[in-house]
């Protein structure tokens, strides 16, 4: 499901028409300079973001980066102090009232004394064009548990109920705040399968996570949030490249390390046990230069991991590599 850089670029410039109703020349989500503070804390410090209908976008950031506040703004649970938030061209409030949005909130606990089916059927009824309850239960993997009381389910099962609640109304956009936080590996795999099933129907999905692998594996596009700002926006590959691409390692064999930092492409040098680790934006040029110095010994070139990328991206600088809304 990864997109090419071109596809990402069109998100900004071209209003695609797709197969959807006419209102869909509007982006599903649009933040414009949106900001929100709580007291002295600037939880969201000016966000610009467009999400096209049909995209699956991950909001990636550490705890406290501003993801939940951004989602609160998105759902109309919070009013922005400045800027605007629009869903399908409408205010979040109106889009929610019109049944175009479903959400799985982070802090939700089990609603006591009702069964899974009763809850999902109730939520479905509040929407104008819900999916059949059996289908929502099926998608969330709850068919077997439909008659059970929610307050007697395990944490992972209750999480699936919250997912079913988000999609019961068959909304065009679902917003999932840390959807896999309480899940074990198996439950997590099942959850993502359900999520993809829903996205494949042409729906828009925005989920927040602090797991890099999840963002990389399940989103078309990753929006990295740090200290209330968007610091990067693109595919997983783009993020890796942007973060100082690759790692070139060579044995020093007693050579001095001077000058290695000035080689083409090299961003940083680290020496460990007589082995130099050169972080480089242009591994080809770096390797050629090393060869010129006659320093190619036990050479090894690896792509930076997404973890490296994430750490590099959230070090306080804003990276302007992407076609998205990073500045």
């Amino acid at each position, binding site marked *: 499901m990864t997109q090419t850089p071109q596809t990402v670029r069109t998100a900004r410039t071209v209003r695609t028409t797709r197969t959807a109703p006419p209102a869909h020349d509007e982006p599903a989500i649009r933040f414009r300079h949106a900001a929100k503070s709580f007291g002295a804390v600037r939880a969201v410090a000016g966000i610009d973001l467009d999400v096209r209908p049909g995209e699956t976008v991950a909001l990636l950031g550490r705890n406290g980066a501003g993801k939940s506040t951004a989602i609160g703004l998105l*759902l109309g649970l919070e009013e922005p102090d400045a800027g605007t938030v629009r869903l399908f061209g409408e205010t979040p409030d109106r889009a929610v009232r*019109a049944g175009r949005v479903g*959400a799985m909130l982070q802090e*939700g606990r089990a609603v006591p*004394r009702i069964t899974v089916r009763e809850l999902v059927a109730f*939520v479905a*009824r509040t929407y104008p064009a819900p999916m059949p309850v059996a289908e929502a239960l099926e998608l969330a993997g709850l068919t077997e548990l439909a008659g059970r009381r929610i307050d007697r389910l395990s944490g992972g099962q209750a999480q699936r109920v919250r997912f079913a609640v988000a999609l019961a*109304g068959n909304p065009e956009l679902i917003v999932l705040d840390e959807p896999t936080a309480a899940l074990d590996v198996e439950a997590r795999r099942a959850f993502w399968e359900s999520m993809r099933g829903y996205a494949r129907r042409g729906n828009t999905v925005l989920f927040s996570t602090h797991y890099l692998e999840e963002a990389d594996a399940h989103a078309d596009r990753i929006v990295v949030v740090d200290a209330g700002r968007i610091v990067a926006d693109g595919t997983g590959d783009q993020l890796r490249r942007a973060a100082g691409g690759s790692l070139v390692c060579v044995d020093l064999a007693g050579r001095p390390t001077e000058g290695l930092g000035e080689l083409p492409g090299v961003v940083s040098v680290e020496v460990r046990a007589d082995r130099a680790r050169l972080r480089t934006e242009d591994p080809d040029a770096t390797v050629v230069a090393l060869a010129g110095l006659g320093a190619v010994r036990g050479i090894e070139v690896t792509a930076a991991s997404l973890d490296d990328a994430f750490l590099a991206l959230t070090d306080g600088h804003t990276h302007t590599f992407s076609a998205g809304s990073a500045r």
Partner: protein
Amino acid sequence: MITAYVRLEVRRTLRDTSFVVFGIGMPVLMYLLFTNLGADADTGGWKTASMVAMAAYGALGAALGTGTGVAEDKGIGWLRQLRVTPMTPRQVVIGRALTGSVTVLPAAAAVLAAGALVNGVRLEAWEWAAVALALWLGALPFTLLGIGNGYRLTAQTTGVVNVGCSLALSIVGGLWFPTELFPHWLRSLSGFTPTRRFAEIGQSLAAGAAPGPAAVAVLAAWALLFGSYAVLSYRRSARTA
């Protein structure tokens, strides 16, 4: 949409064991004890008057209990989840108030049934109907008070405050003991409580008389006050919850 919400919430309330035991069972038990212990058990129609008063006490408890449910829902994030469904906040509040009205019925009806079946209280059919209707409609101010507490306070505090309100209003309002036993100052005070007037309306009807305008006026004033309190509490919680 509201109907579906009310149905859901009524189910949740009736599945709450503590509501069934304490909300419905307790007033019945107290009624039977208070009217059958002691030598002068039935003087001056006490079995009938106490039946209405205890039914009012049951209705009061159920009405306030609605508010405890609101606080619980706020605490577990259910109210916030409802805000991201197409239901408007107004529909949620109205739904909750209607839920309160529905759960009041079994609590009051159980005491009336005990009066008729165990204590041999005999009323005209229209009187039974009028008493039940008065208890049902008259419980609205207390539902509003409970909801006001529920939106304003945490689940734990709401539980305590609602039980406190219930006890104070029941005792001073003469739902447990007739106000004739009260010292003079307490009896005058009692006349201003919504519970005294609530029971009084039912007792007039049970005696085949129309309720006094003073009783209706006092109860209506309290309804307005508690209604404003509920609206203010709700607005405040909407900003924070």
